[in-house]
């Protein structure tokens, strides 16, 4: 059915049938899912994926591709999917994106590929991410993830610092090119934010593990519990390796610097999510790490991190989980799907609100959050209207847990022990965009450590770029 609907490529005027709305994706109902950590959307069936792919107009100038940071041949994989050639479609994706099961789930599609989809001008854009996710899951379910052929060994060695999406991408690319790659990871599990930050209900850890296994199967060695900057410095690693890729992310959580912020019950989102995800505190006492289960939880911030925190709180049994955000809904940087899911789950949003203090009880535990109301003023540097606090509008909201999800920057551990590594504002490592080269010969960087908190796909894209440049450097020795 779907294939029969296919319009002929490039002939927009002959477009036979426009299907204005997206193929819906089945999800766990909100009332049920707030009591478990299982994934929320179920994913497309093969029929649904074909139907959705068939909505693509097969544009002659497929703008969608410009919207994808790694320039996946979207029109190509949608066409193959519509025809039912899932194998061909997933192979096409994997030419540009090594982790489609992950990007299909967590990319902010509405500001990337789907934002510029031609269909989106008048109708709903093609659900590119959902189809991408389907194809990756389809491949995994067949269990024949083949290990690609590796180039003959080059005798060159590369150290990758950090096993997040950036580091894993570099490791995979360079291993395939025949280099000996060792990944050094500070934590006891590989995956970076994908394992410690993003919750199970949004990205099942088995999927991340699958990708990590894939990278290891390429012959990459993974050394965990190794904190670069402490266990060994970058300079020491340079003595043993021909090149280094720094993909250590942006793990240092920010706080607001307001009174009461160090009371018990005030968490950084990183701590709250790490306890729940990496350490599995949601299964305490089966797992040893405890987490406070608040009755009234307030999360401060409006990005993906905030959505993950407030939804985790609900699943940990909060009677009320609220989000406090200083601007309005339209300005929230979180993926639209996460905002939507959070709303469905009954998260209460307090917009145009700025926290000014946290008040505690005599045990030193959080009792109330004090806030000011904001009005929207003149646009700021980001073009968004600046929230301006209304003097005297103070009010207090009762809470027993407050979670700060207001941003993060790279950890100072490596720069502070590496004299020659140039950093800029907030400890972000300075790189040459085209190659990922840092100020140190032989050291490349990419991902959140070089951008500040960004996205999975950007981290992978920068990893790709750096891997190519590292390969060149190893071949030629020219810096």
């Amino acid at each position, binding site marked *: 059915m779907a294939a029969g609907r296919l319009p002929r490529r490039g002939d927009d005027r002959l477009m036979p049938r426009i299907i204005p709305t997206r193929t819906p994706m089945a999800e766990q109902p909100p009332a049920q899912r707030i009591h478990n950590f299982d994934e929320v959307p179920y994913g497309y069936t093969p029929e649904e994926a074909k139907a959705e792919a068939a909505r693509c107009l097969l544009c002659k100038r497929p703008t969608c591709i410009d919207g994808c940071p790694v320039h996946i041949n979207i029109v190509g994989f949608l066409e193959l999917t519509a025809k039912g050639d899932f194998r061909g479609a997933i192979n096409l994706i994997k030419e540009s994106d090594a982790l489609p099961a992950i990007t299909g789930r967590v990319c902010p599609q509405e500001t990337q590929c789907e934002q510029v989809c031609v269909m989106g001008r008048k109708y709903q854009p093609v659900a590119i991410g959902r189809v991408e996710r389907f194809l990756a899951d389809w491949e995994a379910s067949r269990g024949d993830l083949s290990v690609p052929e590796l180039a003959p060994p080059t005798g060159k060695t590369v150290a990758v610092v950090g096993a997040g999406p950036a580091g894993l991408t570099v490791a995979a690319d360079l291993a395939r090119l025949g280099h000996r790659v060792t990944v050094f990871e*500070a*934590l*006891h599990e590989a995956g970076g934010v994908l394992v*410690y930050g993003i919750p199970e209900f949004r990205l099942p850890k088995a999927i991340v593990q699958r990708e990590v296994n894939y990278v290891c199967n390429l012959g990459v060695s993974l050394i*965990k*519990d*190794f*904190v670069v900057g*402490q*266990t*060994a410095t970058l300079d020491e690693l340079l003595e043993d390796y021909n090149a280094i890729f720094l993909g250590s992310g942006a*793990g*240092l*959580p920010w*706080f607001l*610097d307001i009174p009461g*912020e*160090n*009371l*018990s*019950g005030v*968490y*950084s989102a*990183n*701590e709250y999510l*790490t*306890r729940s995800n990496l*350490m*599995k505190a949601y299964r*305490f*006492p*089966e*797992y*040893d*790490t*405890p987490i*406070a289960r608040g009755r009234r939880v307030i999360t401060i911030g409006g990005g993906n991190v905030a959505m993950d925190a407030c939804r985790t709180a609900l699943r940990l049994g909060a009677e009320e989980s609220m989000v406090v955000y200083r601007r309005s809904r339209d300005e929230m940087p979180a993926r639209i799907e996460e905002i939507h899911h959070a709303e469905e789950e009954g998260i209460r949003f307090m917009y145009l609100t700025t926290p000014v203090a946290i008040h505690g009880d005599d*045990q*030193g*535990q959080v009792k109330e959050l004090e806030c000011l109301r904001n009005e929207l003023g003149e646009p700021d540097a980001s073009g968004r209207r600046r929230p301006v606090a209304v003097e005297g509008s103070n009010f207090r909201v009762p809470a027993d847990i407050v979670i700060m999800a207001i941003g993060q920057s790279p*950890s*100072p*551990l490596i720069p502070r022990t590496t004299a020659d590594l140039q950093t800029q504002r907030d400890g972000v490592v300075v790189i040459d965009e085209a190659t990922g080269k840092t100020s140190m010969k032989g050291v490349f960087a990419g991902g959140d450590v070089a951008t500040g908190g960004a996205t999975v796909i950007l981290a992978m894209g920068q990893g790709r770029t750096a891997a190519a440049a590292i390969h060149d450097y190893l071949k030629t020795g020219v810096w």
Partner: protein
Amino acid sequence: MYRIVEKQELAPGIKQMVVETPHVARRARPGQFVIVRLDAPGERIPLTIADHDTAQGTVTLVVQEVGKTTAQMGTLEVGDTIATVAGPLGHPTEIAAYGTVVCVGGGVGIAPVFPIARALQTAGNRVLSIIGARSRNLLFWEERMAAVSNELIVCTDDGSYGRPGLVTEPLRELLEARPGEIARIWAIGPAVMMKFVSRTTEPFGVPTTVSLNTVMIDGTGMCGGCRVVAGGGAQFVCVDGPEFSGWQVDWDLLLSRLQYYRPQEQEAFEQWQRGACRVEETTA
């Protein structure tokens, strides 16, 4: 996986373990710690590196059994493995020739103060040490401390050995008896002890360094769970410390943060004890 190569009971509920971890041993310095996770469901806890042997590739940990994880660790034997030993973490102690220094160790804090005293003595300082425990049977490493100290004072709270009373008393006497002589003080032990040591030394103006034992997870500056207020602002103990000036620490906040997970810790401990007893019954 990191193998335990030696184990010894130093005192009831206090165990010394030597663990094979060459990459930690290679760079370990006095004052640093490791993060330990026993097994897959285990939590990550910080333990100070009480000694290390670069040639053997081992570190020595001294563990006081206070709850689930430390008690479980106490049941491990030579040849058993630990899932995670990450480190060395934190800033090392600033070792220099200061002149005369005092090292105070309370309870299990004697273990972490030992490598500091030794390094200070090697650096040419005159090291006066004060160690204390609740009771004689809980005291350990007296000979080790004596070997790296020019003078050693031992106290017990209950007077069962050495001087009766708390470590703060001989410390005050030293400061009073030798005005201007003591250049610096290190104190490691329970938070309450460190608080009172800091109170004791402040009027004398002798800089006092303490090593803070906040709750930690990653130990790499990623979660902020270990934060304390010291010197006016929030600091992450794992990356900004663990050593701070004792005068600047907001002790009451630190103590209340340490209590936060008490009910859950109790629950985990009790559940584990029940499980551990079952195992003993079935093997008996």
